[in-house]
């Protein structure tokens, strides 16, 4: 019986190692090939060459840093919306008693059901009509309006706080913002981390929103990289794969690094927000 268990455990590990290779190797392949000479067409299967100049080309052949700055602007807007607006709204729905609260919360739930495109495409048509295109206002307004998913997440998380918490703060004569900053946020650390990570990654990866609402000069990296932007200057049909891969690595690395820092909180946040059912 015990032996059987032992074998099963080793089998599980063997499977896990195999799966890890399958999931991880494409990324290693990406990194390894971002370092191969850009004229040599043969891909390498591991880190055998170190042509770091590909990374120079990746940022020099296109206005890489301009795109990066544009990405950062969208990230700041998204993170602000999530950490301030979604957080406070979620708090209000979870902790404040007011008539009409349940009805308004139904509005949040309703938005959860609506597919993303059903909001984005009408918005595109609407702003196009109003001539509001190519401004960050569209993103700012969307951030200020809050994300239904995040509000729901915050509410779920905070519903488990004891009621005495609010009363204790009130008795102490603690102002609202001070209470949020000194009591609620410290108690919600994993949730706060989850919100930050999700908001950062969503804005960082979003290519469609900027494609629809902004034009070339304001494009973030994700949108700019959607086309094949690295080719020989006089022969656009020849794509400089290693340079493109170097750009992919630069584009992906921040998300991976962030993930390493935050994964502890992500797991915690998911468990404690009761999203598991």
């Amino acid at each position, binding site marked *: 019986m015990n032996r059987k268990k032992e074998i099963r455990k080793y089998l599980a590990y063997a499977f896990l190692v195999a*799966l890890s290779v399958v999931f991880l190797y494409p990324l290693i392949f990406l990194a390894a090939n971002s370092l191969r000479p850009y004229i040599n067409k043969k891909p390498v299967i591991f880190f055998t060459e170190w042509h770091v100049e590909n990374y120079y080309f990746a940022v020099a052949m296109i206005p890489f840093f301009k795109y990066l700055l544009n990405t950062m602007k969208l990230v700041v807007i998204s993170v602000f919306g999530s950490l301030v*607006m979604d957080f406070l709204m979620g708090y*209000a729905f979870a902790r404040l008693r007011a008539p009409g609260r349940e009805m308004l919360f139904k509005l949040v739930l309703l938005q959860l059901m609506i597919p993303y495109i059903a909001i984005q495409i009408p918005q595109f048509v*609407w702003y196009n009509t109003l001539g509001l295109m190519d401004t960050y206002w569209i993103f700012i307004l969307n951030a200020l309006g*809050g994300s239904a998913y995040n509000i729901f997440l915050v509410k779920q998380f905070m519903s488990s706080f004891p009621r005495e918490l609010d009363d204790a703060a009130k008795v102490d004569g603690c102002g609202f913002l001070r209470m949020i900053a000194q009591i609620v946020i410290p108690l919600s650390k994993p949730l706060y981390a989850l919100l930050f990570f999700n908001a950062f990654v969503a804005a960082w990866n979003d290519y*469609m929103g900027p494609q629809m609402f902004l034009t070339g000069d304001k494009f973030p990296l*994700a949108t700019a990289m959607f086309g094949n932007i690295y080719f020989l200057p006089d022969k656009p049909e020849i794509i400089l794969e290693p340079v493109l891969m170097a750009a992919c690595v630069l584009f992906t690395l921040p998300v991976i690094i962030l993930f390493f820092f935050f994964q502890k909180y992500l797991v915690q946040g*998911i468990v404690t927000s009761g999203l598991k059912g």
Partner: protein
Amino acid sequence: MAEKRFWNAKRREIALFYVLVAPFVILFIATKLVPFVNGLYLSLTNYTGYNYDRVEFVGVNNYQRVFTDAQAMSSLGRTFLIGCITVPLGLIVGLGCALLLNKARKGLGVFRTIIYMPSIIPTVAAGLMWRIIFNANEGLLNKFLGIFGINPVNWLGYDHILAALVIMMTWGSTGGLLLNLAALQGIPNELYEAAALDGAGGWKKFTKITLPMISPILFFNLVMGIIGGFQLYAQPVLLAPGSNGVLNLPLKPTYTYMVHAYQQILGYSRFGYGLAMMWVLVFIINILTVIVTKTQKYWVFYSD
């Protein structure tokens, strides 16, 4: 006196609630509801993006066109087919990995990180990466298959593009892992112990305890999969030939409904028609979601 203070506090609480929630309500109306209604209206017109002041009401013409547009209909069927492959595969991969991870005590963190990682890789970067892996002549996949004596496959060509898309999407489908894992770890151990006392084997424990206990999560993932699956757009476009960015035309086997819709809107400025296409899809998604929700009582188990 005390009562007055209580009432004051109560009123302040209500006021605070409305101050905090006001942006949500106001902006919901201004940036979602109004465009939504406007979008519904424009789907009944011949709007092209330039003729807002003189749009003509064309009734349900656009909707009729959706159902008579051979490309729209065939792409809808195709999208459904692709979803029938990728959604279950995604569920199985997410659950399978979580089950394996749940067995691992040592090294859980490392494996979890590695397996979860593909789901956070930006879609655009993943697409560009896979395109190079699928490359017919020097691509990694063909090189790997070559070891086993398999002839190079033209992955990005007409015959295999669907397989390529499924491989790429399955690789990136581990996003449900953390949720699944949390659900698995939330199953009380006593249940398994009690089952073991009754002499239940591994398979029986899995079907009678594990599956029912995590069925709410599977249900959640299924609904999200359906909603996302019908909106499939970026991955086929990223694997498509050409250099038109978001307007690249995928090969027929991966030409999805949303690709066709975005082509109408972004490519041809057929806003009215594109909107009608979108509403039809939203309607289908909602119908399916309702149907799946109705099936809950047969297979989803809620403990409380």
